C-alpha cells in the first residue's frame, strides 16, 4: 500500500518531467541573441524573435508589482499584527476567495473598468495582474508576520518604543524573508498568466510604445503561435518562448525554495 502511494507520487511527476524535457529539447534550438531581441514576425513568416514579448512581460510584471506589492504587504501586515480586529477574519476569508478567482473573470473586470474607457493597454494588463498578486502577497506577508516571535515585539515595547514603530522597524524586517518569498512566488504566478492579458493588453508584434497601447507578452505570444496553422514555422517559436517563460518561473521558484529551507542543524 505504501508503494502505491509512492507510485502516485511517481505518476504525478511524470508530466512535470515530460513538460520540462519537451520545453528544453524543443526550445533550446531557438535560443540565440536574435530570437531574444528581434521583433515578432507574423504567423507563417520564418525568422524574427520574441523580443517584444519578453519586454512586454517584464513591463506588465513591473506595473502589476507597483499595484500588488504595496497593497499586499500592507494588508498582510495589518492581518498579521491585528488579528483581533473586527475586519481581520472577514478580510482573511475574502482574501482566500479572491486568490482562487478565475483569472479570466479578473480579466473581464479589468476590461470593463479600464479597457472599455481607455482602450487596450499595458496599464490595464498590469492592473489585472496586480489584482491577482494582492491576495497571494497578503497571505504570505500575514503568515510571515505571525511567525515573528512575540518576545521580540515585547522587548521593543518594554523599551518604550511605540507599537507602530515596533512593527515598522522590528517586526517587518524580521519577516522580510517570508515577505520576499511571497512576492517572488506571486510574480512567478502572474508571469505565466494568459487569460487576463488576452482581455487587457491584447497582444501585439511590436516593441513597447506607450503605457496605453497594446503590447506583446510571453504567454500571449506562446498562445498565438500555438494556434497557428503553419506548424513548422510557428511551433518552434512557441517552444522557444515557452523555454524563456519557464526559465523565469523556475528560477524564481528555486530561489524561493532555497530561501525557505531551514538550516539543518549540525
Amino acid at each position, binding site marked *: *500500500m*505504501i508503494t502505491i*502511494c509512492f507510485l*502516485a*507520487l511517481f505518476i*504525478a511527476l511524470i*508530466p*512535470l518531467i*515530460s*513538460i520540462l524535457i*519537451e*520545453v528544453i529539447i*524543443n526550445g533550446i534550438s531557438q535560443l540565440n541573441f536574435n530570437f531574444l531581441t528581434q521583433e515578432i514576425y507574423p504567423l507563417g513568416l520564418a525568422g524574427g524573435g520574441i523580443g517584444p514579448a519578453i519586454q512586454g512581460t517584464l513591463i506588465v510584471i513591473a506595473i502589476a508589482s507597483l499595484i500588488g506589492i*504595496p*497593497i499586499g504587504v*500592507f*494588508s498582510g501586515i495589518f492581518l498579521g499584527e*491585528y*488579528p*483581533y480586529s473586527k*475586519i481581520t477574519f472577514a*478580510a482573511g476569508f*475574502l482574501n*482566500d*476567495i*479572491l486568490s*482562487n478567482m*478565475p*483569472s*479570466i*473573470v*479578473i480579466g*473581464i*473586470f479589468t*476590461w*470593463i*473598468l479600464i479597457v472599455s474607457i481607455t482602450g487596450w493597454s499595458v496599464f490595464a494588463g498590469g492592473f489585472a495582474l496586480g489584482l491577482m498578486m*494582492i491576495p497571494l502577497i*497578503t497571505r504570505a506577508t500575514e503568515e510571515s508576520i505571525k511567525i515573528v516571535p512575540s518576545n521580540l515585539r515585547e522587548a521593543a515595547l518594554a523599551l518604550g518604543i*511605540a*507599537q*507602530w*514603530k515596533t*512593527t515598522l522597524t522590528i517586526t517587518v524586517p524580521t519577516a522580510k524573508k517570508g515577505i520576499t518569498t511571497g512576492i517572488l512566488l506571486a510574480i512567478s504566478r502572474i508571469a*505565466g*498568466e494568459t*487569460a487576463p492579458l*488576452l482581455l487587457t493588453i491584447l497582444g501585439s508584434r511590436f516593441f513597447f510604445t506607450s503605457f496605453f497601447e497594446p503590447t506583446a507578452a510571453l*504567454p500571449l505570444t*506562446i*498562445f498565438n503561435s*500555438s494556434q497557428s496553422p503553419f506548424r513548422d514555422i510557428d*511551433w518552434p517559436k512557441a517552444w522557444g518562448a*515557452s523555454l524563456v*517563460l*519557464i526559465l523565469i*518561473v*523556475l528560477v524564481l*521558484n528555486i530561489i524561493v*525554495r532555497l530561501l525557505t529551507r531551514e538550516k539543518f542543524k549540525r
Partner: protein
Amino acid sequence: MSKTSRAKKKPKSINIKSTGDSIFKSFLGIITFLIFIILGLLILILTLNSSLSIETYGFSFLWGTEWNPTPAGGGAPIFGVLPPLLGTLTSSLIAILISFPISIGIALALSEFTKKKINFWLSFLVELLAAIPSVIYGLWGIFTLIPILSQYVYPAIQDVLGFIPLFQGATHGYNILTGGITLAIMIIPTITAISRDIFAAVPDSQREAIIALGATKWESTKIVRKYGRSGVIGAVILGLGRAVGETMAVTMVIGNSFHLFDSLFDPSYTLASLIANEFTEASSPEVYLSALIEVGLVLLILALVVNVIARLIIRYTKRKFRGVETF
C-alpha cells in the same frame, strides 16, 4: 481535560498608545479594506454589465443550447450556455476523479512515509507542477499528451469500454476527456498541498497511540486518514474551484465545440474558453458583449460558491484538531 474550542478572545491590551498607533492601524486597515471593495466591485460590475443580457434572456440563458450572435436570416441573437456550463462541470469532475486518489497518495507519502529532507525537495517538485504556466500545459497537451492519448490510450479504452455510449466516437484527442486529464494534472498540487498540511496537523499522540496498539506503518495512517477526511474533502472542493476557473490549458485541448457532448471523446467547450475565444471579437450587437459578461458572471458565481464551501470546510477541520486531546 478536554478543551472546548472557542472563539479567539482578545488578550488584555496595553493601554499606553501613541497617536501614531491609531494612524498606523487606520492606514493599514483602510488598505486591507480594499479587498472587500475589490470583491464587491467585482460582483457588482459584472452584474451591472450583464444586465442587458439578463433582461433579454432571463433563465433561458442557463439552459439554452444555442449560441449565435448573428443568426443567418437576420433574427435576434440567441445565447444559451448549457453546453459550456456542462463542459466546465464535467471536465472539472473528471479532473477531480483522476487527481483525488493520486493527490491523497502523494500527501500520505509526503506526510507519513518520508524523512524531512527528502520531503522538502519532493514537495518542491510537486509544487513545481503548480508553477508551470497554463499556456505551457496547453502547448504540451497539444504536442505530447494528445498524440499519446489518441494513439494509444483512447483506442485501448474504447476497445474495452466501447459498448458504453459514453466511450464511443472518434478518438482524435481534442475532447473533454483530455481536458479533464490536463486539469487533473494541474490541480494535483493544490489538493496535495492542503491534504499534506492537514495530515501533518493530526497530533502525533494519535499516531503513537495506534502504533502502541500494534498497527503496521500503513495501518497507522488509518487514524490520519480518518481525522483528515473532512479536510481532504475541503481540499478536493478547492481543487474543483481551481479547475472550474482554468482557462488556457483547457481551451487548447478541449476542441472548442459548442455542442452538448454525447461521449467523453467528443470535443466540448467550457465557460472560460468561451469567454477567451470570443471576447475580443464581440463588438456588435450590444447584447453580445453583455452575454459574454454574463458568462463571466456565471463563472464567477460558480467559483465563488465552490471556494466558499471549500474554505469553510477546511477551516472547520483545522479548528476541530485544536480540540483534540493531547497529553
